């Protein structure tokens, strides 16, 4: 006898527990099972910088939120419909985000006096009525898991560790998620540890059966597949998409991919991913520091490889001088900055967009470099190819900005056909008489990519100002002025696509203009505003240096431009200074993405300020 099922359009679930409770894995698995059902999804992992903060404390809480729906979703959602908490700390840290009426599933075994006291609960919230406006399911998650595993030869500790799979099983039942993919995943993951595999499988199935049989769970829910364009899909995070994009770009250019990198959160996963793919001829070099990471990448580029370095804000600060050398040497160089909260060490695991001015201007002298930004996890793939196109065509350093939100967040990605990838093959300088290392191509102003090993074009380059064409050391005033302007003109002349504006009926007076990972929240806010009858346009900048050629026109067209940024107005500053257009700068710097509701409210303030 099966229980009643209710169809819902979208659901937001947040899993929260101690950082040792396996919440990221639980969230990941639920995401994969959900993606395979054809729902659209967006995810937001949120974890502490400490690997294992003291158990059961507020700083140790780790969470994973996902939003899935029968329609397109743009963000991981503002307010969870379901919160799964593994201990009192997770409840305390998350309850403020949970709207009244939401469902909260609690591991009641962890609500002991000791654990409650640890996080400052004077009484047990499961008993004192403070949660009466929520639908509470207090489940004996730990003890049921342990008793289900009593037949297995496991320590109590190992048995308890499987409780996240119990929770996953329960949620999978609630939302009709298929179980075979997760079972296959567990079998692969624990193939060498049969007891642990058995424990996880049993806990997972027990959780599912508990939902099916317990009277506490009367109803399950269904979310129909979203309408998505036909094709083959997979779920992808920004960091993996960047790694794949770089491998694809290496193939498209015919160059050897060299990654020089120093581990730093939240960029390290790109290093990890590329390190797995050596059969593509990828060389990954874990350098002694951030400077050597970019230096080795520049050395590789000088030799004719595709030199890439990956880092976050503090790493960019260290690399600045070397990037300046890249500007002077006019060699291709890809610098990926997965931004995190700053300044200094800041908030290593949280997101922010406050490195924009650093990458634009954070070098000595007039030191222009190209700057582009990915807007969603899957867009990271496209923008990696774009970064390589610009770097190799113009022989310049290119910054590709991502951030913690899109690096770790994921979404379904329609897998591109390899045959449709651009041809980016490069030409090196060839043997010739009277070779001039700084003689430029008229269209691009790029100098030749003249690599060692090419007979007859031996030459010397360096960081000292050089003479036009010959590249010899030159300190003359007029030459320096010319070279400074030429380097700037080269960046300014980079071909980038025009900015596309989404203005449904062409009658909006207000434009939401964003860049980077704010794309999802802005698009979601625009959708909601339009559903409420508001007229609003949206555009998203992926090319920041240079800006698209039509940007001035676009700004001119709208009475008001609102620019939400997770900084104190860095893009707004660039726009104001270049276009003399005032910008309504909307800023929050909390280490978290904007919520849709905040952006709707901000827009409403502008739309109805008369």
């Amino acid at each position, binding site marked *: 006898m099966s229980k009643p099922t209710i169809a819902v359009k979208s659901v937001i679930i947040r899993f929260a527990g101690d950082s040792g409770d396996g919440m990221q894995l639980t969230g990941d698995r639920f995401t994969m099972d959900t993606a395979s059902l054809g729902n659209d999804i967006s995810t937001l992992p949120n974890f502490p910088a400490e690997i294992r903060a003291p158990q059961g404390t507020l700083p140790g809480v780790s969470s994973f939120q996902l939003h899935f729906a029968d329609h397109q979703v743009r963000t991981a959602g503002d307010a969870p419909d379901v919160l799964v908490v593994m201990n009192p700390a997770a409840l305390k840290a998350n309850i403020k985000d949970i709207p009244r009426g939401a469902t909260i599933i609690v591991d009641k075994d962890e609500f002991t006096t000791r654990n409650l006291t640890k996080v400052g609960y004077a009484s047990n919230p499961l008993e004192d009525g403070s949660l009466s406006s929520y639908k509470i399911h207090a489940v004996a998650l730990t003890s049921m898991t342990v008793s289900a595993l009593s037949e297995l030869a496991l320590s109590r500790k190992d048995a308890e560790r499987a409780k996240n799979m119990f929770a996953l099983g329960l949620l999978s039942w609630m939302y009709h998620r298929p179980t075979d993919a997760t079972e296959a995943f567990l079998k692969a993951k624990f193939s060498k540890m049969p007891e642990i595999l058995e424990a996880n499988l049993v806990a997972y199935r027990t959780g599912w059966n508990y939902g099916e049989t317990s009277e506490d769970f009367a109803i399950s829910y269904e979310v129909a597949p979203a309408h998505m364009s036909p094709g083959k899909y997979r779920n992808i995070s920004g960091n993996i998409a960047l790694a794949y994009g770089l491998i694809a770009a290496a193939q498209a250019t015919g160059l050897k991919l060299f990654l020089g990198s120093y581990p730093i959160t939240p960029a390290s996963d790109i290093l990890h991913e590329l390190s797995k793919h*050596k059969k593509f001829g990828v060389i990954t070099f874990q350098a002694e520091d951030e400077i*050597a990471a970019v*230096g080795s990448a520049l050395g590789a580029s000088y030799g*004719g490889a595709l030199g890439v370095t990956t880092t976050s804000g503090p790493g960019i600060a260290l690399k600045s001088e070397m990037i300046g050398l890249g500007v002077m040497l006019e060699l291709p160089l890809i610098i990926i900055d997965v931004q995190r909260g700053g300044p200094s060490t800041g908030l290593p695991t949280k997101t922010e967009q406050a490195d924009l001015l650093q990458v634009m201007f954070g070098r000595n002298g007039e030191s222009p470099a190209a700057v582009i930004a990915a807007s969603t996890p899957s867009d990271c793939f496209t923008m990696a190819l774009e970064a390589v196109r610009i770097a190799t065509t113009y022989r310049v350093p290119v910054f590709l900005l991502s951030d913690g939100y899109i690096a770790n967040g994921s979404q379904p990605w329609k897998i591109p056909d390899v045959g449709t990838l651009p041809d980016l093959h490069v030409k090196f300088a060839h043997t010739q008489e009277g070779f001039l290392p700084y003689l430029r191509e008229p269209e691009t102003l790029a100098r030749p990519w003249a690599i060692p090993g090419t007979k007859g074009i031996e*030459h010397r380059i*360096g960081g000292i100002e050089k003479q036009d064409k010959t590249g010899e050391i030159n300190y003359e005033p007029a030459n320096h002025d010319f070279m400074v302007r030429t380097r700037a003109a080269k960046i300014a002349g980079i071909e980038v696509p025009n900015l596309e504006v989404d203005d449904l009926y062409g009658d909006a007076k207000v434009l939401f203009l964003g860049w980077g990972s704010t794309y999802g929240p802005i698009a979601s806010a625009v959708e909601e505003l339009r559903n409420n009858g508001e007229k609003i346009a949206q555009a998203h900048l992926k090319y920041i240096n240079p800006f698209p050629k039509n940007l001035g026109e676009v700004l001119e067209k709208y009475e008001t431009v609102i620019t939400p940024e997770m900084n104190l107005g860095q893009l707004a500053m660039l726009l104001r200074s270049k276009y003399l257009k005032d910008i309504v700068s909307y800023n929050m710097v909390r280490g978290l993405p904007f919520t849709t509701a905040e952006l709707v409210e901000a827009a409403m303030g502008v739309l109805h300020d008369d």
Partner: protein
Amino acid sequence: MTDVTLTKKDFTSDQEVRWCPGCGDYSVLSTMQAFLPELGIPRENIVFISGIGCSSRFPYYLNTFGMHSIHGRAPAIASGLAITRPDLTVFVITGDGDALSIGGNHLIHALRRNVELKILLFNNRIYGLTKGQYSPASEQGKITKSTPYGSLDTPFNPISLAIGAEATFVARTIDSDRKHLSETLRQASAHKGSAFIEIYQNCPIFNDGAFDQVKDNETKEGSLLQLIHGQAIKSSTYGVVRDGARLKLVELANVDESELVIHDASDPDPSYAFALSRLSGSALEHTPIGIFRSVVRPGYSAMVNDQLSEIIASQGAGDLEKLLNSGDTWVVD
């Protein structure tokens, strides 16, 4: 191998050399230009990468590929080049400030990895290009522009540092001794892996005579302890004997030559080479000269590229389409 025999002239660029008159860099440059043809390597396959400082202008004067980079970072840039281009011969030109101060980290890590670089450290024990401040190799108490009351820093011994950093080839030579310098370059070039050469180099402007003890005819024979593989270690007046696990100096007059240590640069134990490096005080009165250490360990670039080849041989070359379609996928009709 090239089909034409190159000469010193072929390696001399058209740039006017701009070091101060009397600078020790001139003789190192001239020796290098004369030595390079001997390698039999085409000019285009040779790259000189330098940092910042007087000696780092070196690449401009050689008609090979060259890069005058930024302060201290040459080993990092050269590592990226050497790893991706194992077909090239890469020299790093650096000084005591460039390599031991601002670039210390890159030097030690290039050496520990054994990247196939020939690193020439021009040690003049002073900052020349910035006009005369003390360097990390300057002797304690040094009076300079930035230390008018004498420097307090204990100096680095570059040889000890390189040995401590797991270097596989460590040598010392002198700018003015063309024959010794050429021979050292020859040995370094034959070494697979990092080769580190400290070159005592006179700065006539800011630290003139710093190495007179080992250069003047009256004192050099008695000060230089010749390190020649398979031969006893001695100067004209002193020899080196074992003292338990240590080495010590004894006057030749007081020792039977058969008791002297026979130099073994291939000794796998680095403590022997380290002990040799500690024999000289900063007054240079007993200075070992020659190859301290030359041991065989696989080069980094060779290992990186071998690993790639092995992976490709066992797994097959990467297939992009397969990669993009890996993991959980689903189809929307």
